[in-house]
């Protein structure tokens, strides 16, 4: 058995070391990652994937800690992927989400992994999807993904999660009414955390009226919940709504299939695009044609788009 096969076997048995090694592989080693995902893919699709997004300081990590405790109380196995940003200047990252979750550390049926975005855009890491698959295949019933503290356009989470929870807290300086497209549109559930603070009621009303304006005839109407993550207030209701949403997806086969189809198509296109791009560019660099054209562009003899077209024509011609 190869090392990858061994790790795959370990994942399916729920072995924590194998899970950890596997996530490292999907983060780093393209070749081995492909083999690994191929092995475990047939065993995925069981877990309910929950995405948690929202501005930094809204209380996502604290909320997750309470959610995990509740899921554990009802006997569910849980995986958590917590994403933090990579510095575009140094390439390093400070991964501190675990601080709020360390009480869960010794529970064998909880697995927490911190990931850096490694400059992938959209609020999660490129490998987050596969890390979630690893946790899914290892037998977790619930996988929670905490995105980078998000602004408006960190919406990649919808490609990964089945239920997306947007967390807001009053007093963070962003007026709900100023929030435009993006993050408001992706929520299956809204949470106003730190609901004991001033401004919470206004936030709830603002979100609700925003929803009334936007969501004409959608089959699922996102509820707006209040929580106080520090005390655990509102957590039961949140878990309940997440479960309701899951049931809605299960029950509404059309909706569920449509969502899955969109996700799958998007992922397939991206996988193809990446491979085609990489292989074409590698080939062009190898032949020296790439550098030739860079030089021409710098000399203003051609422009980038025309150059790309020429290169592609040549590359595709050579393929046949």
């Amino acid at each position, binding site marked *: 058995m190869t090392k990858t096969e061994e790790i795959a076997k370990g994942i399916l048995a729920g072995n924590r070391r194998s899970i950890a090694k596997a996530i490292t592989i999907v983060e780093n080693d393209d070749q081995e990652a492909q083999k690994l995902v191929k092995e475990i893919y047939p065993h995925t699709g069981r877990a309910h994937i929950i995405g948690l997004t929202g501005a930094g300081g809204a209380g996502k990590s604290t909320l997750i800690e309470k959610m995990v405790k509740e899921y554990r109380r009802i006997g569910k196995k849980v995986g958590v992927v917590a994403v933090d940003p990579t510095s575009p200047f140094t390439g*390093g*990252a400070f*991964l501190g989400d*675990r601080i709020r979750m*360390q009480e869960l550390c*010794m529970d064998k049926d909880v*697995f927490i992994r911190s990931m850096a975005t490694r400059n992938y855009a959209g609020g999660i890491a490129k490998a987050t999807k596969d890390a979630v698959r690893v946790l899914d295949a290892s037998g977790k019933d619930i996988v929670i993904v905490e995105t980078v503290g998000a602004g408006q356009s960190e919406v990649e989470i919808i490609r990964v999660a089945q239920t997306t929870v947007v967390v807001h807290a009053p007093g963070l300086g962003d007026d709900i009414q100023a929030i435009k497209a993006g993050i408001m549109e992706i929520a299956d559930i809204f949470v106003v955390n730190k609901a004991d603070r001033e401004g919470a009621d206004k936030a709830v009303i603002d979100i609700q009226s925003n929803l009334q304006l936007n969501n004409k005839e959608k089959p699922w109407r996102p509820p707006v919940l209040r929580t106080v993550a520090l005390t655990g207030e509102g957590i039961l209701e949140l878990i309940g709504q997440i479960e309701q949403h899951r049931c809605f997806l299960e029950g509404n086969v059309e909706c569920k299939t449509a969502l899955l189809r969109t996700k799958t198509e998007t992922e397939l296109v991206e996988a193809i695009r990446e491979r085609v791009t990489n292989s074409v560019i590698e080939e062009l660099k190898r032949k020296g044609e790439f550098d030739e054209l860079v030089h021409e562009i710098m000399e203003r003899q051609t422009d980038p788009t025309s150059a790309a077209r020429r290169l592609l024509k040549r590359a595709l011609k050579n393929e046949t």
Partner: protein
Amino acid sequence: MHKGKKIRVLIAKPGLDSHDRGAKIVARALRDAGMEVIYTGLRQTPEQIAETALQEDVDVIGLSILSGAHKTLFPRIMRLLEDQDMTDVMVFAGGIIPEEDIAELKKLGIREIFGPGTPTETIIQYVLENISKKS
């Protein structure tokens, strides 16, 4: 594995220290040197540290301790890492650790002790030069 792989570091505070200024300074310095640094906060038990290192599949662990309990806690941590088959992880320590205890700690497998006043550049260089590429 191969060059270009990010170095993942766990900065951990075993025991009952009441502040983590030093640990955070080291964590930030390593981050600015391009590493991915997991910091788990105050009051970690040896078990929590070992389990976190396992789940996060770290290459390096930096133990920060001010309370003087290093002679009790460090052996437990190193033992747990051994049980978990993680002896290839580089472990260094810092904080308030008397000179005369250093030899004993190194015998446990702790590679280096970086006392108060150590330039962060020294720690960074040490990690970069001594990190073994894990297979």
